[in-house]
C-alpha cells in the first residue's frame, strides 16, 4: 500500500535535495520573487563575498513596496523622497548587476509581487516558490508550496544556490464547509480563522485550506485566504489545485503550452491530498456561521463580527491576553463595550496584496456606485493589469465619483514604505492584512475588513454592517454573490 500524503507533503518531498544529519531539508526553489524591501542587504553581502546568482532566470525582481502611487510617468526623478528614490534605484541596479529579470516602476506589468506572480502564470501547482516577503503564501492558492524567506540571509542563499534550508513544518488542515452567507467574503473567513487560532496558533504548521466553501471560491478569494496564513503564524498556506485553478491558469503568459499543458494538468491532478492522509492538526469552520468581520485592536487576532462590542480587557481570563487587549484599546483609543458600528473613521484604504484584485475592486465599487464617501481615501489596484481592467469596466470612475483617489499599483498605504501613510491619530478602515501598532503610520489606527465593508464604512463615515447599511442594494447583491463564488 502506498503512503497516503497531503498536498503539502507531496510537494515538499518532491523538492528535497538532501537532508542534514540534524533533520533540516535542503529544498530546491523553482522560482523566487524579490522585492526592494531589505534585499539590498542581501545584494551588498553577496557583492562583498564575490558571489553570483546560480540561476538568474529563475528570479523575478518586482518593485512594489516603495513606489509612490502617483507621478510614475516621471520615472525615479518623480519620487520626491530621496531615501525612497534610493531604495527604488538600488533594486534596479542590483537586478542589473546580478542579471536578474526585473519589473521596474514603469513596466506595463508592474504591481505587487503576490498579485503579479499569479497574474503572469509564474505561480503554478507543484512548484516551490520563495519570496522575501511574509505574505508569500498567497501563491499557495494555486497549489504551490510558497514560502517566505528572510530578506537578507535566506535571500542571499537562494540567489547564490537556488536552494533553501528548512525544517519540515507540521501539517494543519482548516476545513471550511457550507455556503457563506450573503455579503460574507474570503476576508471574513480568514479573519474568523485567525480569531480562532490566535496570531501564533499556527506557528510551525503548513496549512491546507479545504472544504466545500473553499472549492466554491474563485482564485482571487483563495489568494485572500492563503495570503493571511502568516497572521495565524503559518508561513505556508495552500489549496489543492482543481478545475477552477486550471481554468484560471489556462490563458496566463508563463504556463505550459500544447502537449506540455496536458502533461502538466495530468501531473497537477495527482497533487491533492490523498483520501485518508493524516494531518497533525485540524480545525473546522462552519461557513454558514461566518459573519462580516472587523479588527478592533492591534493584532489581526483582535477581530470580531461587526455586530458586536469592543471587548472589556477585564473579561479575559488569560493575564497576558488581558494585558494585550488593554494596551491595544489604549492605542486604538477605544472604550470597552462601544458598539463597533459606532466607531467613526477618518479615512479608507482599498488595496494591498490581500484585497486588490479585480474582484475586490468590483465588490467595493458595487457598494460605492452612486454614493459618496464621507471621508477621504484612496484605491490602489494590485497591478497595472488590474488597473487597466478596472478602468475598462468603469470602476475607476465610480471610485472617483465617490470622492476617492484612484492611484497606481503598489503596496502603498498597507505599510507606508512608500511614504503614503495614515496620519497620527487618524482611524482608517482598510482592506489590508495587518493592524499592528504603527503599521500604516506612527499612531495611525487601523481596522481591517473586506473591500465591501471598507466601502460601506466610507459611505457611513463609521464602521458599518454591510448587511444592514443600505436598504436598496440592487447593484450590490448581484456582486456580493459573485464575491462568494
Amino acid at each position: 500500500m502506498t503512503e497516503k500524503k497531503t498536498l503539502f507533503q507531496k510537494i515538499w518531498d518532491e523538492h528535497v535535495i538532501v537532508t542534514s544529519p540534524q533533520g533540516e531539508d535542503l529544498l530546491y526553489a523553482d522560482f523566487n520573487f524579490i522585492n526592494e524591501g531589505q534585499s539590498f542587504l542581501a545584494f551588498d553581502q553577496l557583492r562583498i563575498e564575490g558571489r553570483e546568482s546560480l540561476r538568474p532566470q529563475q528570479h523575478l525582481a518586482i518593485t512594489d513596496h516603495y513606489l509612490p502611487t502617483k507621478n510614475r510617468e516621471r520615472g525615479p526623478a518623480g519620487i520626491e523622497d530621496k531615501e525612497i528614490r534610493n531604495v527604488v534605484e538600488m533594486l534596479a541596479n542590483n537586478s542589473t548587476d546580478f542579471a536578474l529579470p526585473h519589473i521596474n516602476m514603469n513596466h506595463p506589468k508592474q504591481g505587487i509581487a503576490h498579485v503579479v506572480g499569479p497574474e503572469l502564470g509564474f505561480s503554478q501547482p507543484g512548484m516551490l516558490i520563495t519570496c522575501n516577503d511574509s505574505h508569500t503564501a498567497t501563491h499557495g492558492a494555486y497549489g504551490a508550496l510558497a514560502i517566505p524567506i528572510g530578506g537578507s540571509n535566506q535571500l542571499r542563499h537562494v540567489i547564490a544556490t537556488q536552494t533553501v534550508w528548512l525544517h519540515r513544518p507540521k501539517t494543519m488542515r482548516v476545513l471550511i464547509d457550507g455556503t457563506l452567507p450573503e455579503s460574507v467574503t474570503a476576508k471574513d473567513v480568514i479573519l474568523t480563522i485567525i480569531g480562532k487560532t490566535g496570531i501564533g496558533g499556527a506557528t510551525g504548521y503548513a496549512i491546507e485550506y479545504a472544504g466545500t466553501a473553499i472549492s466554491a471560491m474563485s482564485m482571487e478569494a483563495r489568494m485572500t485566504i492563503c495570503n493571511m496564513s502568516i497572521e495565524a503564524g503559518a508561513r505556508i498556506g495552500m489549496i489543492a489545485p482543481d478545475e477552477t485553478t486550471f481554468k484560471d491558469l489556462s490563458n496566463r503568459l508563463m504556463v505550459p503550452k500544447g502537449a506540455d499543458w496536458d502533461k502538466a494538468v495530468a501531473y497537477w491532478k495527482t497533487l491533492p491530498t490523498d483520501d485518508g492522509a493524516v494531518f497533525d492538526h485540524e480545525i473546522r469552520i462552519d461557513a454558514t456561521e461566518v459573519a462580516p468581520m472587523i479588527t478592533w485592536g492591534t493584532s489581526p487576532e483582535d477581530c470580531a463580527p461587526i455586530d458586536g462590542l469592543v471587548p472589556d480587557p477585564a473579561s479575559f481570563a488569560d493575564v497576558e491576553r488581558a494585558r494585550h487587549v488593554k494596551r491595544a484599546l489604549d492605542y486604538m483609543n477605544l472604550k470597552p463595550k462601544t458598539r463597533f458600528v459606532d466607531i467613526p473613521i477618518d479615512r479608507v484604504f482599498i488595496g494591498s496584496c490581500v484585497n486588490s484584485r479585480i474582484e475586490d475592486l468590483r465588490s467595493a465599487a458595487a457598494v460605492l456606485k452612486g454614493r459618496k464617501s464621507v471621508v477621504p481615501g484612496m484605491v490602489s489596484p494590485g497591478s497595472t493589469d488590474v488597473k487597466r481592467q478596472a478602468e475598462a469596466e468603469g470602476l475607476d470612475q465610480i471610485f472617483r465619483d465617490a470622492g476617492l483617489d484612484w492611484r497606481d499599483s503598489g503596496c502603498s498605504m498597507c505599510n507606508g514604505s512608500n511614504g503614503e501613510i495614515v496620519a497620527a491619530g487618524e482611524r482608517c478602515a482598510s482592506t489590508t492584512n495587518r493592524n499592528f501598532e504603527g503599521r500604516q503610520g506612527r499612531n495611525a489606527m487601523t481596522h481591517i475588513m473586506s473591500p465591501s465593508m471598507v466601502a460601506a464604512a466610507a459611505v457611513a463615515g463609521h464602521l458599518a454592517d454591510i448587511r444592514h447599511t443600505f436598504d436598496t442594494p440592487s447593484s450590490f447583491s448581484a456582486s456580493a454573490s459573485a464575491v462568494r463564488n
Partner: protein
Amino acid sequence: MQPFTVLTATAVPLEIAKIDTGMILPGRFMRRHRRPGHDYSEAFLYDLRFDEKGHPRPEFSLNQPSYSKASIVVTGADFGCGSSREGAAYAVMDYGFRALVGPSFAEIFYGNCLQNGILPVVLPELTISEIWEQLRAKPGVELTIDLPDQVLIDADGRRHPFDINPLRKDRLIHGIDDIDVTLEHKEAIIDFETTRRKAFPWLPTSANI
C-alpha cells in the same frame, strides 16, 4: 558571523508582549543603507525609547543607566511578530544585544536571529516573570547563557535548560554561514535540477517578460 558560546552579561527586562518587527525597526528607518558607523542601532525600538519630540522616555527600561551595558534582553511573548523584515534582527544586533530571552518568538524572526549570530532563548512564561523580578530587584545584574550546555543561569544561580535545533546550535557555536555548508552539496543540487527539468520541462526557466 560572530560565534556564540558562553555569554555572561547584564540583562534588561522588556516587559511587553507582542513587540513586532515594526516596533523593533520602524518602517521609516528601513530605507537606510546599513553600513559600519551608520547602522540600525538608532532605530531599535525607537518609538518606545523616545517620545514624539525625540526625548528619551526615562521610564523605559532600555533608557535606564543601570541597564546601559546589557547584551541580553528578557522580553514578553511573541517578540518579533509582524512582517519578515530582517533588518529587525540587525537592529537588535547593532544595538548591542547578543541574546534574547522570552516565552516565545515569531518563527521568521527567530530564524533571522540565528542567521545573524543572535541567540533567542525560549523559556516558560513563569520563569520569564521570575527573571523579570530579579532584574528589577537588582538592576544591572548578570545572567549567563551557555549555548554548548543549552542552559541559562539566572541571577539567583538557578539553571534553566532550553531547546535549540542542533544544526543551528552547531553553526552558531562555530560562526559558520549557510552558503558555505550548502555549496558542499553543489553537485547534488545540479543533479537534482537536471532530473527535475527533464520531468517537468514546463517549469519557468526564463523570466524575461
